[in-house]
């Protein structure tokens, strides 16, 4: 049975005529505006073959070249990684790892030899990587005082409660407080190139320009009022597990000392995942066509200060070049190629389905 449609404007006089006996009758009809009668002009899209199928094909055709570009770029990045934790007894740093105590005055030095098979061009970045280190643990992430790190003098001597238990050392406040600062990575890595005469040439490592500009110039500030940092930090204590106080992180360069030390800033930017790498040094590219790191033998001198074996962590050193998409990560390239192909294939399947079943939509009558 079909209900007939009708014109809603008809017979509207009937109602007011019926109730006009009372005299002044208020018309309770709602306004006949497009908004109130839900007749606003609108765009009503539907999924038709004409819009869906071209979209799938276009996406497939765009994604595959992008994926190939990403994959090729990632493959052209050169990366070298070496684990120097010293787990197995034949690794060079085994003794340092085994004999680690917190009270050593004499630093333990170990040397790792490796060979680069290909020369590294352009700027080369040296990273240290840690594994199984949960810098994203909630208690750890909260354990800092951003006001103190921004140079606020009241927070310097009275840090936030979030820093507990690394807030005070005895009666004196710790600067910088918190677990993140306390666990600062303090291995020293020095790289030597061993040339054909077996003589060691130190590779120049640049330690500035490794932290974000906003971190270095906005977020982290030394306490104001005293250019002599030893005096500025006089009422504070060093963090429990540090060998030196914060104003001795880099005494030779006042722009890299105190809270604005770039290694410190890089460490304070907590990582999102338990396996991460942080920028340690930059090897500037040489002028002309000389590769930055020619292929050959290298020697890495490690001052082993950072214990990771107690929580089954691993330390590694990474040398890597960079491209417009960052470091070596083939995932995006492979993902784009895969998604592009699936999209294209799905477009073909949908086209076949549409061809076979399209008559249903147009010719089939609506059952009553």
């Amino acid at each position: 049975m079909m209900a007939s449609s009708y014109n809603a404007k008809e017979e509207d006089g009937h109602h007011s005529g019926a109730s006009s006996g009372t005299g002044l009758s208020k018309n309770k009809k709602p306004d006949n505006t497009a908004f109130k009668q839900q007749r606003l002009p609108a765009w009503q899209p539907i999924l038709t073959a004409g819009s869906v199928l071209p979209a799938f094909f276009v996406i497939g055709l765009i994604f595959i070249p992008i994926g190939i570009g990403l994959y090729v770029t990632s493959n052209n990045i050169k990366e070298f990684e070496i684990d120097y934790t010293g787990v197995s007894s034949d690794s060079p740093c085994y003794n340092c790892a085994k004999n680690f105590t917190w009270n050593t005055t004499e630093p333990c030095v170990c040397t790792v030899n490796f060979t680069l098979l290909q020369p590294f061009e352009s700027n080369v970045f040296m990273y240290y990587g840690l594994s199984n280190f949960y810098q994203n643990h909630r208690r750890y992430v909260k354990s800092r005082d951003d006001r103190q790190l921004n140079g606020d003098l009241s927070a310097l001597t009275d840090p936030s409660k979030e820093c507990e238990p690394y807030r005070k050392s005895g009666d004196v406040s710790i600067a910088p407080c918190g677990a993140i600062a306390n666990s600062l990575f303090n291995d020293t890595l020095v790289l030597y190139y061993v040339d054909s005469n077996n003589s060691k040439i130190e590779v120049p490592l640049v330690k500035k320009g490794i932290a974000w500009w906003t971190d270095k110039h906005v977020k982290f500030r030394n306490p104001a009022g005293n250019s002599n940092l030893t005096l500025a930090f006089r009422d504070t204590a060093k963090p429990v597990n540090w060998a030196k106080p914060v104003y001795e992180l880099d005494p030779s360069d006042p722009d890299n000392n105190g809270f604005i030390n770039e290694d410190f800033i890089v460490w304070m930017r907590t990582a999102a995942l338990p396996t991460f790498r942080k920028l340690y040094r930059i090897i500037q590219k040489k002028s002309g066509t000389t590769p930055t790191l020619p292929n050959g033998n290298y020697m890495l001198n490690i001052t082993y200060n950072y214990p990771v074996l107690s929580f089954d962590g691993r330390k590694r050193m990474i040398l890597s070049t960079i491209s417009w998409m960052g470091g070596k990560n083939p995932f995006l390239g492979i993902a784009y190629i895969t998604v592009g192909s699936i999209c294209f294939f799905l477009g073909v399947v949908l086209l076949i389905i549409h061809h076979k079943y399209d008559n249903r939509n147009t010719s089939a009558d609506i059952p009553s």
Partner: protein
Amino acid sequence: MCQTVICCRVTPLQKAQVVQLVKKYKQAVTLAIGDGANDVSMIKVAHIGVGISGQEGMQAVLSSDFSFAQFRYLQRLLLVHGRWSYIRMCKFLGYFFYKNFTFTLVQFWYAFFCGFSAQTVYEDWFITFYNMVYTALPVLGMCLFDQDVNDRWSLYHPQLYAPGQKNQYFNKKAFVNCVMHSCYSSLILFFIPWASMHDTVRDDGKEIADYQSFALLAQTCLLIVVYTQLCLDTYYWTAVNHFFVWGSMVAYFSITLTMCSNGMFYMFTSSFPFIGTTRNSLNQPNVWLTIFLTFLLCILPVVAFRFIFIQLRPTINDKVRYKMRTEELPVPAPRRLRRRHSTRSGYAFSHSQGYGDLVTSRKFLMKRSTKRAPLFTQTDSSIFQNQPQHYRTIAEEAEESQGHSP
């Protein structure tokens, strides 16, 4: 068996008892419509009570859920407004569960990578603003204005009302579908950024896989996917909808940029620790490629599924929407103006086979029953035979010389 029962000369109590009978034994949703004070009990007993304001006073109107002035507006109430309300409510529920499950399940996957320490994968301010600011207005716009089919087409095809009666749009199955969809979306929304940021750096060698950049990436991906899902669910895009959706997206980027700015950091240092994150991560092509990949991986399956269902198993809704685009509505037959007195009082009626025996089963009548000759010799009603119906009250017969109601 008869599909329609007419009860006449019934007291108000008996009217209420008829409705109660149907409610109790058939577990159906009942609607009662009346205009007089004697209909009040029936209106109150039914699930939906409709009062007609008019000659018999305002008693029925005051006790009803809906009221209007003329009986024929019932058709519009059910087929247009009732149907739209049902569709809007179901879309709202489905979408609300989807966006919140997705939001929460991403945190769940992150728990496996943060030592189960309940570290949130999103920024704290984002969590605060997500339901209140970023996704509030778009959903409101969809629920206020959405129409799948406009009112004239709704009246022309009353079969569109059937999904509401069968509760097809939001039931256990629909809820399970929603949860599965959220699971899939959350897996994509976490693991694609995870794989893409794993051991990666910026294009100048500096950090990008830090917690703050990862949080920003995850929340941007989530919001874009959730907005696009809303765009796919909205069938009727008025100017207000456009404003709400695009405005919310702009609001997200402006609020996030503000919270990562130097000024806010200087003013409220501990509250805005994400200083500099947008500037340092959103200018990386890496990040935008990840966002684009995540967005497409979440949305394309939905589009493909919907398209396949439209092609293979089109519902009445799909067919009417398609017809609406291609055909013009046939011009309605002009309705003859008639003046008539409303001498009928309210009545209870049922709409499908099987109620006849219930009502005439005398479950509520008193034991005084008199034998009388059957009024109708036909055993099958004309609905059964798909013929047009003729409904008239006794009083009208005198007025009309000829003709039939359409």
